[in-house]
Structures are given as C-alpha cells and as structure tokens.
C-alpha cells in the first residue's frame, strides 16, 4: 500500500467537493479497493470515505419500490428487505463472506461494476434506477461494459431504487476459488414483462438476455428457455470455464431461476 490521505465527509456535498482534489478516489466498503491498494495496484492521493454520510444510509419500501442508500451494506440489505423484495435480500445474503457483507456497500458494487458482481444483475434485472448526486440513471443506460458505467468523474451513487417485481429469483453458479459468480442469472417477472440479467459471463459485463425475456414474457416456465441458444461469441473464457460452458450455464441458471421464482 502507498501512503494516502483520508477524508470522511458527513454530507454528499462535502464528499463531492473532496473528490475534486487531484487523484482523489471514493472509498465505500473497500472490498475491492482496499485489496487493490494493498497490492500497490492503485495510488490515490486521497480517499474520500462515503460511509459516514447519513444521506447515503437507509432503506425505504413503499409504493412497490425499494429505495436503498448507496452506502448501505450487503448485510443490512439482506436483513432488511426480506419482506419487501425477498429475491434481493437473498442475493445480498450470498455475496462474498460475512466480512464482505458487513463492509461492502450496494453503491460501491454498482459503481465498480465488476463483471462478476452480484448486484449489477439485480439492478439490471429489476430495471432499477441508479441515483447519483446529480441525476437518476436507468439501469439499462448505467451499465456500459466491464468496470464501465455511466458515472462521470466525481459522481457518487447515493442510492438505488428497485421496482418490486411479482416474482424474482437469483441463481448463482460460483467460481470455486473466488466464489464470485462464474455465471449468475437474475430473473424478475413484472406486469409488463420479464427481465433476465446475466452476470459473470460476458466480456461486456452484466447484460440482459433478450431472447429469454421474450420467451419468458410469453410463457414463464423453464421450458420456455430450454430450446434457446446463448451466443457465446463475447462470453468470458478463462481458467474456470470456457465460453460455451458459460453459455450453457446461462441457460441452466435461467431455467432454475424461473422454476424457483414460479
């Protein structure tokens, strides 16, 4: 780790100001950033902690929507939204290990947009709205590729708003070492259709599987996807699985999510 300064603002406005410093970087739960710093793979001059800001805390469920503050930990989501949005609580309860869940935050995960993270699948699969200090961004516009989002320099994810579906389920097939998703699928059924978001699988990061959405909107059963083929041309191939294996798993996990949700 290289030496750095740390700022702990107590308002979003102060955080935004602090982030204007040269080579300043936001720090939320630190579950990705701190290991990166320890390996000396990043050298920010200042870290701006976002975890002491009351505006970024709290969870509200009302009118078919669950709104979660950007600095809310996975453990808090897991413990708090079980009634309002069970599939989301279940997803949060299975991210990483207890240490990760007690430190890591939803805003941090969405801002980082790791191609194998869990939360991007929930946000995209739910058609969530990402709320920042300056604007609201639809999930469909927010996720723009591996570790790439619509966030501007210095823009902070202050909250996320999830429309609650009729039914939803998250199926995760873990990579055995990291226990991140090798492939995971979030399926959510809304009145106006079904959304299917896939994480862990693509070189472009989280994505929607349009063919499955169409088939499931017509017939919400695992049979509806069993005849589909996933295009594997842009899927990840690595130590843990080839592209065609990931394509296969996308179908299997989607079918299982539908069965579990139905």
């Amino acid at each position, binding site marked *: 780790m290289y030496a750095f300064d740390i700022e702990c603002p107590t308002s979003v406005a102060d955080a935004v100001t602090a982030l204007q410093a040269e080579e300043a970087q936001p720090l939320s739960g630190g579950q990705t950033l701190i290991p990166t710093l320890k390996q000396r793979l990043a050298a920010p001059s200042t870290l701006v902690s976002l975890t002491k800001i009351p505006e970024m805390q709290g969870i509200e469920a009302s009118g078919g929507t669950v709104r979660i503050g950007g600095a809310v930990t996975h453990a808090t989501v897991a413990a708090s939204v079980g009634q309002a949005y069970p599939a989301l609580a279940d997803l949060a309860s299975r991210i990483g290990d207890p240490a990760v869940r007690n430190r890591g935050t939803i805003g941090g995960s969405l801002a980082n947009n790791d191609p194998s993270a869990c939360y991007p699948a929930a946000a995209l699969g739910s058609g969530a709205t990402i709320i920042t200090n300056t604007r609201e961004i639809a999930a469909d516009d927010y996720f723009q590729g591996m570790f790439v989002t619509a966030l501007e320099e210095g823009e902070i994810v202050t909250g996320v708003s999830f429309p609650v579906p009729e039914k939803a389920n998250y199926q995760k*097939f873990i990579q055995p*070492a990291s226990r991140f998703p090798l492939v995971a699928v979030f399926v959510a059924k809304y009145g106006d259709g079904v959304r299917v978001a896939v994480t862990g699988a693509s070189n472009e990061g989280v994505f929607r599987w349009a063919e499955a959405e169409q088939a499931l909107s017509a017939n919400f059963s695992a049979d509806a996807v069993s005849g589909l083929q996933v295009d594997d041309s842009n899927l990840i191939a690595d130590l*843990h699985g*080839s592209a065609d294996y990931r394509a296969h798993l996308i179908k*299997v996990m989607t079918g299982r999510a539908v069965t579990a949700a139905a």
Partner: protein
Amino acid sequence: MPKDGGIGAPTRRREDYRFLTGRGRYSDDIKTQGECAAIFARSTVAHGTIKSIDTSAAAAMPGVLAIFTGEDFVEVGGNPAGWLINSRDGEPMKEPKRPVLAHGKVRHVGDAYAAVIAETVQQARDAAEMIEIDIEEHDAVVNMKDALAGTTYVHDEIGTNQCFDWGWIEDNRAATDAAIQGAHHVTTLELVNNRLVPNAMETRCSIGHYDTGTGDYTLHTTSQNPHLTRLLLSAFVMGIPENKLTVIAPDVGGGFGSKIYHYGEEALVLAAAKKLGRTVKWTSDRSEAFQTDAHGRDHVTKIELALDEEGNFLAFRTETHANVGAYLSNFSTATPTFLHGTLMAGNYTVPNVYVNVKAVFTNTAPVDAYRGAGRPEATYSLERVIDMAAREIGMDPIELRRKNFIKPDQYPFASAAGLEYDSGNYDALMDQMEKVADKAGFAARRAESESKGLLRGFGVNAYVEACGIAPSNLVGVLGSRVGLYDAATVRVNATGNLSVMVGAHSHGQGHETVFPQVVAEMLGIDPGSIDIVHGDTSKIPFGMGTYGSRSLAVCGSAVVRATEKIIVKATKIAAHMLEADAADVEFKDGTFSVVGTNQSVSFGEVALKAYIPHQFPIEDIEPGLEETAFYDPANFTYPSGAYCCEVEVDPETGKVRVNRMTAVDDFGNVINPMVVTGQVHGGLGQGIGQALMENTTYDSDGQLLSASYMDYAMPRADDLPFYTVDHSQGTACTHNPLGVKGCGEAGAIGSPPTVVNAVIDALQSGGKNVTHIDMPVTPHRVWSAMKNAG
C-alpha cells in the same frame, strides 16, 4: 502407570490452547529492537538473461541500508539437492547451481534478483520498485514434453532440460515388457497429477541476527527442520560453522512439505545481518508464497496394467514426466523417484513393475515434496488404472483389488518395486471400510440422489505407503546425501519433572501432546509433568525434521530409547537407595521396588537423588539423570488403508459434491486416536482439494495464472463432507519399539483416486461413457467430458 494420558488416550492437544487463543509465537511475531526489513525484487518474466541491474536510484531512497544482487553471492555456494539420482545410462543427474539470488538469468516468475534492506518494510518496498533491471526475455519453457524436445534451456550450461531419466528397477524392465506383451488384457491410462501450491496458513518468514560481539549467527525461520537448514547453510551455502549458527523455528503455521527446504531468503537475511550488524527480517506476502514456495506433485504419467484371464495383475509399467521447476529444491529429486517408484506395486502381489521417470526443468517455481510426496502420485496412478481395468473386464473394483491383495500370511513381503513390507492386512481394511461406510446402503442412496436429478457414484481405493523415513544405510545406497535418523534427549529435572528435547519439529502434528504420552506411559508418571522442547538447534541434540510421516516412528523411537536409558540408570540409583542389587529392582507404575519385599522408592525420589548425590556411589554412577538417543530405523513403515467416497454429480452443470467419505487406515499402534483422526481429516481435506479444486496453471509465457485465492481454489469447510475415520484395524509395525507407522500423509494419499473413481462411477451410472477426467475435476471439466462423450 498414568491414570489417563498415556499411550492410547485421546488427550486433547495441549498446544491448541495457545494457538486458539492467539498466544502462538510465530516468526513474524518476534520483534527485535533495531530490526530492519528485507524486501525482494522478483522477476515478472519467466525466463530471461539479466543484462544489467541498476540499484542507484533505489539506494538513494529514504531508509535504505543495503542492496544485494546476485553479484554479491557469486562466491557463495548453491543450495543443493539432497539426493543424487543416476539416470538409466548411469550418468548422474544434472545439478545446476541454485544461487541465493538470481545471477545471469531469471528462471521463473518470482525468481528474486535483488534484495533491499531498509529501516522499514514500507521503505524497502518503495526502494525495491526503483531497482531497474534490463532483461533480455527468452521463450518460457513450461510444458514438460516441449521442454525435452526443444532447444531453449532453463539452464544453458547443462545443454538439456532433462535432469535425469531414471528407471526402477532397470533389471525388471525386460520382464515387465514381456509380461505386458503377452497379457490377456492391458489397460492403459494417461493422467496428470496436478501441481499444487502448498498454501500454509503462515507464510514463510526469516529473521537473521548477527552478534557483533561473538560472531554468532541466529536465524529464526519457518522451518520443518531447523537442523537441516543449519546443515545446509553451514556445509553448502554460507560456510558458517555449525557451532556459530543457531537456527530456531518457533511456532510454525503449517508446512505440508514446503518448509522442509532451505530457501535463499534465509541466506540473504543472515548475510545482511552480518553486513549491517542489524537484525534483518523478511516476511513473505501471499503473492510471494504462491510464486516461490516449492510447489507439489506435477506429474504426467502413462500407466499400463496387464492382467490375465482371471484378473490377476501381471505387470504395472509407467512412464512419468516429473516437473522439478526452475531449480532443484532439496528433496525434489527423491520425491518422484524413491518416494514414488518404490510404491508402484501398491498393495498387490503383482510380479512385474517397471517405472520410468524423466525429471524436467521448466521456467516454473521449484517443485518438491508436498504432503505424501511421491506416494500420492503412485497411489493415484495405480488406483485409477485398476478402477479402469475393473470396468473394462467387467469385474467389481473391490473384488479385483481383493483378488490381487497381499494376504496377511505373506509378510514380510518383498514387493516387485523393491520394498519389504513388514505388516498389513488389506482385506481386513476393506471389510471394515465396507461396513463403516454402509456400502450395502449405497443403492438406496443412489436412488435418492437420482430422484433429485443427480448422479451418484461410489469410489474405492486401497493404498500402501512408505513412511518413517528412513534407514540411513539403505537411503545412502539409493543416493541420499543425508542420514534419516532422529534424536531425542530426555532430561529428568531434580524435582522429578521432565524436559524432552526432540529433533522432530511440530507444526500442527501434535508432538507436544503425543510424545509426553509415550514417556508418561514408560515412566508411570503424569504426562503433565513432561514438556517437549523442539525447534531450536541450540537446545536439542539433532534432528532430521518432520516430513514423511516420520516423527513418531523415528523421533518417537529415539524418545523411547532415551527413556529406556533413563530407566536403566534410575534403576541403578534406586538399587543403591534400596541397598539392593539392580537385578532385583523392578520398575512399575512409577515406583522402583525390590522384588519380593515391600521396599520401594518413587521415580521422583530417584530423580532428586540423582541431582543431590549425597551418599552416592560416584565411582559407579554419574550424578544427574539425562540421556540422549539417536534412532535409525531398520526399515520404512508401511501404513495402508481402504478408502471410499460417494459423490453427487449435477449432470446439468458438472458440479461434484463429495457426499460421504470413509477412511479406514492401518497406522499400526495408535498413541493418541484423536490426534490421528485430526491428521486424517486434514489430509482428506487436502486430497479432496487436489481432486476437485486446486488448479495451478502457468500460461505458455510462464505466468502463474492461479496466483491468488481469487483463482486458486482451496477447499473450505462447506466444500467438504463429514468424514468417517476408522483406525481399528491396525497391524503393529514389526521393527520400531512403539509399533507405529505414521499417519500424517495418509488422508492426502488415499483420497484423490477415491474421489475421481467415484465421479467416473457416477457419470457411468448416468449413461455417460466417460472413463477418465484429469484432476482437478472441476465442474467445467466434468461438463466438457460429458459433452465429448455424447
């Protein structure tokens, strides 16, 4: 006789109190006034010629005290291989020098080419990043068969990447070839024994200290054998006289083989300590551990099994390529040869065995002994090909094994691979396994799995290994450059308690609990009054270390011999106190008594007399009560076992889950059954990890892809089943005083083939014609195998 806590008692491990409450004292816990820090600059490329190293910018960094490069160690000796292997043509193996710091070339990712000593770790790290190295990169030699065919050499001076081409037993070759040629059936299998990263919980750490007043060196280091490290530093590498060098291995957080060996970092901190007159500490980080701890296994083997019409084994023939990595680590040449080829007859009466091993240099981390060391490789090859043969000839795999087992009345049995097994009863182990594993209930469990859409398989395995290494006379003939005895001193203090100095270092094995049980049993005293001292060359007589499941069989035997000497001397003292002839004095339950009288003295009274020798026959008996023994075993010991497991395979994803695991082992006599059970549990976890998860992968450039826990899958508690462990069927070792065989490695030897056999059985039950999958049997590999089988 101790009421409890003697031989056979499941005494809780006394060392666990300090480990579980954070009071263990590991090397990195040692803080010395004025210590400074060493950080190594390591190669990021696998293979290249060092054109230049510029340390000037680094030297100007704050806090920097010294910088070393390979140039500084040109006059220093190389770190040697401990075992000379001759090739089939009689030529000795190739032994390129292994320097303290890379000189001329870097040969693997992580190869250290410089070291910075600074006031703090942070300063040393900052400065190390400022060292400029100019490397002319070469193609990396990674794949073993390519290495033998190619003309890019890891060590240019030897003009080949082959270290040796060894045949065992060369005189058996023609007969083995003939037996295979004429056999009714031959089963052939090509397999990989996957490379493993040891992953001890505590990373390596070395602290060098030089006393400028006396010229004495002290090295604190994470070692499984401090005396061996001292010997190597003295006789080969640094030339420091043994009497001027103390090596101390305090609490060590796991080794699994990787801390047997001497590493260059140990020499560096001593050299730096002398140069600076300061204490110099280096602690490996986890990335360095992945890149530089000696890895394990990494064999590619073709094995053939020849059978007659009835299923009798006629011959095993193997050809193995064994990766030794970029440099020869201390036991790297013994592991794929005498710890592997000699076990290639397994538990069987097979008359012909021939083993060929080609050891190959590559641009990868050195490979050496890892829990089991050669024996897991032998067992895996044998027990996979036997399972495949059973399927091919349509015989039950247990029946095929039983048909060929050595029977209890055949001991001592001279195996076709050159060892003499002293004892065993493999059928009894198999019987017990079938019983405690409820083999009869498997069909119902399979039906239940199938009702959930899962395939269930039953896998079986038998193993025999050679432990308690080793008879020095024998290993000397076979090429060992050291003896493999061990030593102990039993010191009875004046007040009747004991300090027992043992050569075998304990880093998870439970010596501090188990050795006192032996002494307490022999002396009839409370084990709580006995303490073990280990890990410090200034305190203990000598030791050849802890590996090869040898501690109890070899060092424990030395403890027995030393304690016997104590009893002899104490009996003489007691006889004097009782005014009787020593021949009339009987020692029982901690009391010396004159046979046929009610006159007696206690062990404690005798101890006190030894140190307060008033009215003492000093012309016949020396004061004091302390004895030392060195024990050199007459033979290896031969633990054996019958294992089985049941797996569930998800046919949609390829995911394998070990559902039940049973280990029935013959460890001979058992001193502490709870410690033995714990050792087996650990071994099973490592074996299942190897079978299903652990995948050390270098790419074609020699980059280690699985270089962190993000990509290297270690088994976690929820990856493992509850185990059934049974050691009720022991047959005593016939040649050591305790009748013990050793239990440390068994679980890691017996479990990998068991798991893979079960996976194949599961897939076959689902109509998938899959006959082999290489370890680790990951979901992706299972899915691919199913897909390719159609």
